[in-house]
């Protein structure tokens, strides 16, 4: 996969289908970011497969110039697992939404992360059901008024990162839907990462949940409200990069460099690669600032690697090469 003859551009990963998302939808940004990321990963176009479930986001494979399957609601991780186990040389991507992955497909979502198959999952989180026209989803906020919660939602939401890391996700990143450059970089890293990588995109739904992330993603507040983490670097944010995170007991606390004797070396350094998920869980739960970037990237053994090793070991020991060897083995007898 690493030896690419041809240098692709994003156009190689597009096709002639008319894209039918609502004008202004962040899905366009995600589509273009993926198409721009793929030429940078070195994978061959014919080795790329996009598998989706159901929902607005899940139309995604139809707009790609690669192999793809628009599956059924919630099952994309299971279908994709089959694709990858059948042919581990493929680069397999799962496209899902908050309803698709957190509600109807919740079971597959946690198990695919637990197994750590080398898939890339992009979770389009818009905190609403779009395709069915505006019901609350498992990530909608308490009190949120939707078509199915006209007096306000009473069901507390999942935090996807918290659920994912709880389910042993080895790679988790979060990014705003209006940050194409960072998003592209994260997709490249997700593809390079061996194991299941989950990228949550905070995706604005212009029709049913417009502005749901504006307090974090608006260009005017973004730098003060988002902490974009990078492995090995201090967790600093703010227009002047003078705010940062420190540990106070078992809690993260925001401090300002220069105030109360805080110096830059007091700020926590982000370690995405550590196995221990404790700090990663604290980061995904933080609301002020909201943490974006690659929060966790712990390199672990993949399911395919385990399976391959086992298969090689068994093949080496087994006396069976062909089915005939098996069928005629053991207790057989002759009838004349």
């Amino acid at each position, binding site marked *: 996969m690493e030896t690419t003859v041809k240098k692709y551009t994003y156009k190689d990963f597009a096709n002639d289908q008319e894209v039918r998302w609502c004008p202004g939808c962040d899905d366009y940004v995600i589509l273009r970011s993926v198409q721009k990321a793929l030429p940078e990963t070195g994978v061959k176009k014919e080795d790329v497969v996009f598998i989706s479930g159901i929902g607005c986001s899940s139309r995604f494979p139809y707009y790609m110039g690669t192999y793809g399957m628009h599956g059924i609601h919630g099952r994309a991780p299971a279908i994709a697992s089959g*694709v990858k*186990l059948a*042919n581990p040389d493929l680069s397999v991507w799962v496209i899902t939404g908050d309803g698709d992955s957190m509600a109807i497909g919740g079971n597959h979502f946690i198990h695919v992360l637990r197994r750590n198959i080398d898939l890339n999952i992009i979770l389009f989180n818009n905190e609403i059901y779009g395709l069915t026209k505006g019901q609350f989803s498992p990530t909608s906020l308490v009190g949120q008024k939707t078509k199915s919660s006209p007096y306000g939602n009473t069901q507390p939401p999942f935090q996807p990162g918290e659920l994912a890391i709880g389910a042993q996700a080895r790679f988790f990143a979060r990014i705003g839907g209006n940050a194409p450059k960072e998003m592209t970089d994260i997709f490249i890293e997700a593809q390079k990462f061996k194991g299941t990588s989950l990228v949550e995109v905070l995706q604005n739904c212009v029709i049913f949940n417009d502005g749901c992330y504006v307090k974090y993603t608006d260009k005017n507040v973004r730098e003060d409200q988002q902490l974009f983490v990078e492995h090995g670097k201090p967790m600093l944010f703010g227009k002047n990069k003078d705010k940062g995170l420190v540990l106070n007991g078992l809690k993260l606390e925001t401090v300002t460099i220069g105030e109360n004797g805080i110096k830059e070396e007091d700020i926590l350094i982000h370690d995405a690669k550590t196995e221990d998920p404790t700090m990663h869980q604290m980061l995904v739960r933080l609301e002020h600032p909201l943490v974006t970037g690659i929060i966790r990237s712990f390199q672990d053994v993949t399911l395919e690697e385990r399976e391959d090793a086992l298969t090689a070991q068994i093949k080496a020991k087994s006396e069976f090469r062909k089915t005939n060897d098996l069928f005629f083995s053991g207790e057989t007898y002759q009838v004349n």
Partner: protein
Amino acid sequence: MITLEKNPNTETLDAVVIRFVGDSGDGMQLTGTQFSDTSAMFGNDVATFPNYPSEIRAPQGSLYGVSGFQVHIGSVEVSTPGDNLDLLVAMNPAGLKTNLYAVKPGNTIIIDSDSFTKKNLEKAQYETNPLEDGSLENYRVVQVPMTSLTKEALKDVEGLDNKSITRSKNMFALGMVYWLYDRNPEHTIEFFQKKFKTKPHLIEANTKVLNAGFFYAETIELIPNSYSISPAKMQGGTYRIIMGNTATAWGFLAAAEKSGRELFLGSYPITPATDILHELVKHKHFGVKAFQAEDEIAGISSAIGASFAGDLAITTTSGPGLALKGEALGLAVMIELPLVVVNVQRGGPSTGLPTKTEQSDLMQAMYGRNGESPVIVIAASTPANCFNFAYQASKLALEHMTPVVLLTDGYIANGSAPWKIKSLEEMPEIKNNLVQEVKENWHPYDRDEATLARNWAIPGTPGLEHRVGGLEKDRITGDVSHVPENHEIMTHTRAEKVKRVQNYIPEIEPEFAQEGDLLVIGWGGTYGSLHSAVKQIVEEEGYKNIGFAHFNYINPLPKNTGELLSRFKKILVCELNNGQFVNVLRMNFEEQKFLQFNKIQGLPFANSELIEKFKQIAK
């Protein structure tokens, strides 16, 4: 080594039905398997059926903790595990109580009298001891203190604890039955030598007990006479005893090797289908990818993914699992990928009777999906031909680019019978619809003119990148289409593709009368019971005008079905459900009148009830 002294009183019989029953921990499955293997090697035809509780470790001695194994051996063709017992071996009171109904008066019961203690009698809910109260006087009861005889036989063997000693009493019983039926225990002794390779004291102990049972039966005049069953007339060749579920698994192994596709199984454990998963996970040496998924839906979904990527993909389940797989099966219909779904049927609805057999998922297999969603439906009919139909299901799926539902049931899946081993060279060729080169104006839904199968371009093939999905597709380009006429054409095309499979499957050939008064129809796992009942009534009771047609191909039906039906005055459709196949026939042949015989007790048909029904209708 035992030298066989021919019993002077030996009586020759055609066939014998024996059931070994005891507590779950008494080793009845092993005893039964040893007896049937030995008989098969002797050349008998054999059919077996295990019967064990659905509780994993039921309380010792309880009525619901009884485990049984039934063996039918014959010098003639044997097609079922049998109805009435010639011999019952009961290792405890609970086993006697729950199985006495199956023993015909006058037949033999061998009992471990040591186990008829006050406590065990209470557990079996006997108010008085049946060995003393005269309730068994119509049977030939052989009381043997097996537990104490076993202890006595092992008193000089060192290194055995009390538990291992008591546990081996099943071998005492087996030794007795070997003598009774003129069998050589040598095969079982070899089995001990293999099984206990590193524990020589266990080889010694088990061999001693087996021989003790054999000699006991020979020397003590408790057993009035012995029986011998001559070898059956079977086609020459190499045989092995195989269970239906194993045969199913092996059919897929063979199909994968023959087709050159790797085998992928996506599955979730469910009774009575799990043994197929157990079998296939063993065969990583053949490159089998057996994936135990998080649920039934993920089982089939992962298989669909593997099929998209070019594997021979299968999923295995039982009734409730098929219900969960329905939506995904519809996706496979829509995207027209090869897929085999095995449904080992059990009693339903809902959780129903998980360990009992039934044929009540036929309608679910045919129609259990949203939309117009035709699939090929085929059914295996004996433990051994599960191999052929698993192979055939794979062949049809790959050649016709469609999902296939393969129906078996708990009865044939857990039953075992001799299988004349098929080498791969004997199996028919399996083609596929793979495309590997870019052709001008290529589309993923381009079809084979004869079969209507679409072509199969798998990821990794340069230039053939395309998208499939659950949305309706344009019939030419394969792009999403909501055009009304296109949907109608695609609906007809998918139906026609399945219908045309008729051109590739064998015609149905009736057994016995080719025309006449009554045609008995069955399908799937009831073959053995129906065949032997029709055979009996035709050959022994003189009803020469009865024919028997057993269907393995349900959708589509064999081409000549209508013509066959028209050759008989009356048609009787026998099923272990409330009448499902009969309705498939009614829909297709509305000019015919169909009579039904249905049984819904979680049990196979009994010979006597079939004969009675046939006579009633044929007169």
